């Protein structure tokens, strides 16, 4: 089966600092993949390139067979709104909107009516167990609730791929466990493919497979560090 999202030989530098030095990745429908590595190994950059937030310097990204990396910002923005979902470490919800309005926003941006969008939002908030937070603003929610609302917002457009960057980084163990469980469940139910970037092995354990980055490249050993010997 051909992959849903595939990347070949991605390179990206920030000025003179290389972040990615040729990374390949294949993602299939419904699978959950973890991307691990030390800080600065290029995990987040990889995520940004895959989701179209950044354009890679070299290499290609294909989504459903179409090339993604050489398209316009407007096209990629549209894609992020309709076919991709993004979940970051800090929810980045809009602080003055209520949870329901935050979740409804992507649908409204896509041209949907306010009423329909809010109804869909209510459904998703219920599915993730945060229905009681619907009329509250982000400032009034706990970290775990915030991330679940952010997850609802990411999933409300029924995306083909969900990109999660350290989704539990700011949460305690139990809150993080709940978010990962829900993430796995909704991904399975919707058939969404998930890419989770994390440095935490207990979070990566929620994925079916993992790739490890080392200095912007794939590390086949999975160790994330070059092995030296002798002392």
């Amino acid at each position, binding site marked *: 089966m051909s992959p849903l999202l595939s990347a070949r030989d991605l390179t990206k530098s920030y000025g003179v600092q290389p972040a990615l030095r040729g990374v390949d990745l294949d993602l299939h429908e419904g699978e959950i993949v973890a991307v691990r590595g030390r800080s600065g190994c290029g995990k987040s950059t990889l995520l940004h390139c895959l989701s179209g937030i950044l354009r890679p310097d070299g290499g290609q990204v294909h989504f459903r067979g179409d090339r993604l990396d050489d398209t316009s910002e407007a096209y990629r923005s549209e894609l992020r709104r309709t076919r991709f979902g993004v979940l970051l470490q800090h929810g980045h919800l809009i602080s003055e909107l209520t949870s329901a309005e935050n979740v409804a926003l992507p649908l409204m941006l896509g041209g949907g009516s306010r009423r329909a969008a809010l109804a869909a939002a209510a459904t998703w908030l219920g599915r993730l167990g945060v229905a009681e937070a619907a009329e509250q603003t982000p400032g009034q929610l706990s970290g775990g609730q915030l991330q679940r609302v952010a997850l609802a917002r990411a999933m409300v457009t029924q995306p083909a791929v969900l990109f999660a960057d350290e989704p539990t980084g700011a949460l305690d163990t139990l809150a993080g*466990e709940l978010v990962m*469980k829900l993430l*796995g*469940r909704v991904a399975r139910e919707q058939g969404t493919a998930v890419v989770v970037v994390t440095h*935490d*092995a*207990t979070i*990566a*354990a*929620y*994925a*079916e497979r*993992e790739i490890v980055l080392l200095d912007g490249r794939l590390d*086949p*050993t*999975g*160790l*994330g*560090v*070059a*092995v*030296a*010997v*002798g*002392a």
Partner: protein
Amino acid sequence: MSASYVLLGLLARGPKHGYELKQAYDQRLPRAKPLAFGQVYSTLGRLERDGLVTQAGQDQAGGPERTTFAITGDGRATLETWLAEVEAPAPYVTSALLSKVVVALLVADPARATTYLSAQQQAHTGRMRELTRLKSEQDLTVGDLIAVDYALTHLDADLRWLQTALHRVADLHREVQS
């Protein structure tokens, strides 16, 4: 042996038969090795000899499994003392994993070390995935979850330690080289 203290703790709630004791033990410590009947009675015998439990009654049906055991005052005191003691946080480091990693890093050549370490890590992450799946899929009791968390946390600790060890040796190597 801690099995004695667990039995004392169970008896502190009220007198029990031997059979009830075994059931309660298995329920509270589901992931631990199940306690054999023989072990239950030998432990109870030891406790009775030391005056920490006493036989409280006999059912008509008779037989050792129908004997009710109860905790004594001394038993309670011993239990209190045990609970008040802190478990010495791993004063001695004994681990097969530690030995193997140390040897691999210090003695083997880089290629073989990498092969072993990579395989070890895969084993750990594989087991972690299994346990995580377990947590998500089945309806587990709190006792089960606590035990699974224990396992996961320790596996994670092993992995983190492994990472640190690799980095230490790599840094040392760089220093030595330069």
